[in-house]
């Protein structure tokens, strides 16, 4: 009797141990994954706290140094790569990126909301033609038509302006599709009720559709903000006036192909600046982010 009990206990213990081992392995795998993900960031953050010579000599530091304050204030107020370029302060570039990302995100949401509203709640000639015209833009990512779009911008004298930087990017098939999809789920009774109340379409939009769409708007905003923030090829081509430099393009320009030495510490500090806002948005608004991502399906 007692022998059998011990066996059961031993078995249970063995199974516990196996499960514990499995859990350990799982943790190990995840920690490893997280580490691989974090490695470049760690190196960057550490690098941003040392002086130029340390990095330039190739003594790869693994622990933070004492130059953080100096590097970050230099990058923020004067701009890194001063020997390399006409230094643009990180603060200016961040502001440009922020304005660009906000204009793109808000612009996309605004015009997509309106057009989806028109397509869903109205019946009018050529409705589906319009819808397909918007839809087809999915197939023309800006990278593909980059040179001719640049020429259009030249013809319209929109080069080197915030308008030129953002306006062409605010058409959005994905956002329109998402809103359309969502509007189709709004029960017909709501529309009926609104009509009974004598509300016109614009009141209906303002009082019913918009409040219902808040979560969708928030989710979209997160995705579109990151989309706008991370633009590269377009600003690279559109902007040669350094006052309009965005942080992503400005950062890569700091890495000299040109005549001089790279100030790696300042480049790294600027990279941290460039990372922070979108990463913060993703981490802090994680719920909206995941909703936005999985529902727009890109």
């Amino acid at each position: 009797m007692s022998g059998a009990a011990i066996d059961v206990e031993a078995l249970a213990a063995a199974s516990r141990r196996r499960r514990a081992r499995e859990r350990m392995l799982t943790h190990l795998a995840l920690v490893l994954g997280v580490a691989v993900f974090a490695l470049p960031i760690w190196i960057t953050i550490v690098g941003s706290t040392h002086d130029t010579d340390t990095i330039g000599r190739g003594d790869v530091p693994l622990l933070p140094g004492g130059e953080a304050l100096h590097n970050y204030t230099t990058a923020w107020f004067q701009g890194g790569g001063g020997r390399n370029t006409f230094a643009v302060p990180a603060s200016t570039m961040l502001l440009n990126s922020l304005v660009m990302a906000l204009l793109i995100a808000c612009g996309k949401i605004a015009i997509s909301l309106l057009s989806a509203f028109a397509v869903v709640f109205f019946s009018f000639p050529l409705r589906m033609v319009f819808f397909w015209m918007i839809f087809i833009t999915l197939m023309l990512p800006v990278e593909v038509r980059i040179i001719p779009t640049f020429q259009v911008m030249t013809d319209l004298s929109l080069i080197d302006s915030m308008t030129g930087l953002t306006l062409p990017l605010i058409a959005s098939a994905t956002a329109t599709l998402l809103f359309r999809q969502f509007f189709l789920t709004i029960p017909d009774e709501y529309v009926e009720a609104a009509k009974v109340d004598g509300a016109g379409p614009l009141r209906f939009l303002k009082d019913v559709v918009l409040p219902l769409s808040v979560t969708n708007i928030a989710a979209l905003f997160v995705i579109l903000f990151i989309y706008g923030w991370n633009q590269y090829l377009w600003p690279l081509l559109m902007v040669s006036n350094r006052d309009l430099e965005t942080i992503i393009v400005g950062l890569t320009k700091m890495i000299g192909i040109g005549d001089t030495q790279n100030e790696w510490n300042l480049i790294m500090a600027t990279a941290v600046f460039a990372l922070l806002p979108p990463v913060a948005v993703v981490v802090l608004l994680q719920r909206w982010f995941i909703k936005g991502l999985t529902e727009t399906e890109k």
Partner: protein
Amino acid sequence: MHRRTLLTGAMSLGVAAPALGQSQPIEIQFWHGLANPLGGLLEKRATDFNATQTRFKVVPTFRGSYPETMVAAIAAFRAGNAPHIVQMFEVGTGTMMAAGRAVKPVHELLAETGIEIDFNDYLPGVRGYYSLSDGRMMSMPFNSSTTVVWYNKDAFRRAGVDPDKFPETWQGVAEILPKLKAGGGTAVPMSTAWLTWAQIENFSAIHDIPLATLANGFGGLGTELRINNPLVQRHMAALVDWQRDGMFRYGGRNNAGEPAFPNGEAAIMFTSSGFRARVQREARFNWGVAMLPYYQGTPNAPINSIIGGASLWVMNKGPAAGGGRSRDEFQGVAEFFKYLSNPEVDAQWHMDTGYVPVRRASYALARDRGFYRDNPGADVPIEQLLRGGGTLTDNSRGIRLGGFVEIRTIMEEELERSFQGQQTAQQALVNATNRGNQVLRNFERANRG
């Protein structure tokens, strides 16, 4: 509503139109591609000029790297909004020469405005690069440099090589490379930046062999590459062999390989004379500057090397008839050029930046001020540009190829394949010739008539 606020917000963030008052000076837009600290020094020349008079105001703007500046200027011209002056790197010269009514040739500009600049005093290599074959200037020479050799004297001493005498010939270089590898104490004996500019373009010039037919393209658009010749083949094969044997290291395109010299990885570096400031600042060893070596036994070699750097082009406003520029604007441009040509200004530019002086008078001025006594070797690039008596041949005047930016890239791409061991140096030259000629034919076709 929402949209309107967004748009007006966006508009107000756009470029503000320059205010044009009646009594304002005439603005001369000047786009340049020099990063700091050079860019700041260049802009100082503009402010200094503005301080000498009140009628004109030169407004310098940094437009990114040279290629970016070129693209921006061309786009602006197509939009009818080109700057008055654009700084264009030397490889863009062929493209600008063929630009027809997009540019205002400097000789025309000077004739129309009645301003004289003594181009006869300019270094022949500088002058030749930017003039027509009959000597009329097309653009205004400005920042110029050439490739020279930088070497680590300490490494030479360690390897038992005379540190005060860099070999004059490639045969001599071949002899010291194994010694440097064995005892120099550097990661690699030799490296180069600007692979094609240093090892093909300047190499061909100092050996007096053609890079392309029709006098390196000065004679017309029908030019063809001639880089696949025995001497370049020999040199490229040597580089590829040395790379394989660990005696040479290709450090990447443009000047990406430069850091290997001041940080002590490479004992010998071929790169621009403009490298001086950086070496002075960073190298923690004794170093020297020497002229480019040549292959002994080549007839006429060595003669002058050719320049790199950039010149200033005058542009019309746009494709519309007449070009859209007033007489006064051209007057302002010409006076600014006159100011830049002043030997005082030029000598100071040379001493501040490390670029070579473009005039003999400025060279003399810098010498009188003791600049070369205080900065040994700073006159090596100038002497090299004057080597062989200073009379240019068809092979050492410069290079005038359309689409040269692309051709340089092609040469680099093909040679990179050789350095990876994917093809022989000769195959690389054959491929580069074929591909480069295709570019030349396309350019000829797009620009004829």
